[in-house]
């Protein structure tokens, strides 16, 4: 074991892992975090708190993680390169580890253009792969990016993201290999709706033997409405929502759409479990945390393992 992460323990025990996601509020309201954390508790092995997702100002990921950790959950702090240079990133890495967090997801970050402060200066001093390597070197070599040594290293289980639906498709596996070599312990993917394309991507991952070097968690999410499906299909960069998904939701009476969205999510989870090399799911019920218990239950993923930390 590299860390005290519950997620690492679950994955190392070869148990099909479940991670969740908690969106922090656009305010200083700690109660929102506690309420959402209570819903996730017992239903996931660890959970992410997004770091200024879509470049909208929200409570800092590490702060919301700390609040939720007090509720007894294993947080995954998300860390983007959009807002921090290598100095700020390393300071946050030290602080996060010192606060007792065990997991960090390394991201480049959504471009500032998409958020509520489009005039902000993007930083992008590092990219996600360079961030992964920097955190790994801090943990395993006890070295800062500049090469200087540190006394107490941050013991973090290192995650990275991957979008199997982005282009150039043929190059995605090669880029993931770079992330793994840089030091990623686990990968959370973009939300899967196009199962066939995801399966094709996983085959490329297996052909390179990457599934044996890194734990891959397939991203899944329930869809609440036909409008939401259409929005994701046309407006969210990097998403791949096949027509059949929209049609399935359109095929039921309006009051049953959200129920059908949950069913669809459960179906996709079951398909993910059948794909060789998928080590778990990352369930993103964004602003719909209430759906999580029902989904994990119906997908046969309860109870979650209780491991000694």
């Amino acid at each position, binding site marked *: 074991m590299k860390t005290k992460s519950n997620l690492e323990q679950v994955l190392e025990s070869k148990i099909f892992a479940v991670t969740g996601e908690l969106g922090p509020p656009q305010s200083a309201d700690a109660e929102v975090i506690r309420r959402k954390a209570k819903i996730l508790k017992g239903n996931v092995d660890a959970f992410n708190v997004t770091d200024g997702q879509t470049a909208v100002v929200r409570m800092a990921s590490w702060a919301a993680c700390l609040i939720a950790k007090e509720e007894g959950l294993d947080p995954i702090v998300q860390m983007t*390169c*959009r807002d921090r240079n*290598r100095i700020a990133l390393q300071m946050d890495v030290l602080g996060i580890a010192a606060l007792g967090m065990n997991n960090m997801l390394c991201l*480049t*970050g*959504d*471009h500032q*253009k998409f958020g509520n402060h489009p005039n902000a200066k*993007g930083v*992008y*001093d*590092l*990219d*996600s*792969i*360079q961030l992964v*390597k*920097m955190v790994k070197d801090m943990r395993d070599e006890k070295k800062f*990016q500049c090469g200087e040594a540190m006394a107490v290293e941050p013991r973090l289980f290192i995650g990275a*993201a*991957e*979008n199997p*639906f*982005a*282009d*150039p498709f043929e*190059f995605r596996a*090669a*880029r993931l*290999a*770079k992330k793994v*070599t*840089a030091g990623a312990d686990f990968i959370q993917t*973009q939300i899967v709706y196009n199962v066939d394309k995801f399966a094709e991507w996983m085959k490329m991952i297996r052909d390179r033997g990457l599934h044996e070097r890194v734990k891959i968690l397939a991203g899944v999410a329930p869809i609440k409405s036909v409008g939401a499906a259409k929005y994701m299909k046309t407006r969210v*960069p*990097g998403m791949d929502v096949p027509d059949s998904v929209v049609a399935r939701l359109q095929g039921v009476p309006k009051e049953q759409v959200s129920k059908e969205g949950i069913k669809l999510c459960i179906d996709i989870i079951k398909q993910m479990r059948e794909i060789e090399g998928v080590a778990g799911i990352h369930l993103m019920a964004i602003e719909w945390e209430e759906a999580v218990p029902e989904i994990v239950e119906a997908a046969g993923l309860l109870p979650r393992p209780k491991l000694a930390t």
Partner: protein
Amino acid sequence: MLISKQKPLEEILSYLEGEKSVFLVGCKGCAEGWGSGGEKQVAEMRKTLQEKGKGVSGSVVVDMLCDGALTKLKLRAYKKEIAAGDSILVLTDGAGVQTVAEVVDKVVHPGCNTLSAGGAHAEWKEAESCLECGDCVLEFTGGLCPIARCSKHLLNGPCGGSQYGKCEVDPSIPCVWQQIVDHLAKLGQLDKLERFVAPKNWSVSLTSGPPIKRFS
């Protein structure tokens, strides 16, 4: 006007590792003016490389290397010499390097770092291909610059927002990482992108470094 300075010889030689022979390109514009890649420097580089045991299959110094049409025409006359070399070493600013990469299907190495636009930025705004970052990375990116052309300046791209050849930030922006992958695939050099590119040295750029120092 793009102000450039030759990279250290060791760095240039590291780019040429495993290659027997190289074709040299210089420019009679900015690079000659700043003594980084005019007639004189190209001749010197030819001599230096030969002393280091590298073959030079030929050389040319173009009037305005950043002019794609002119460069294409000029290089056509050196088809044989270019084909005889393993690669092309361009002793100019990043704009010139990228023009060569665009018009010839050949591995292109940057021989200089571009330090500044010398105050003439406005003339170039619409076609900006070099941001004068002072630490040229074109060696690792197939001769297409992600500092100038990627919205997130990724050195290990593409990000998850590249779809259908376009940048997620605006559909009118081509994804330079798609172009980099396509270009290197065409040259059979895609494995180049599997190497980790380390964090960049921003201390030599105009936006992060102390600009006054450079000209003192």
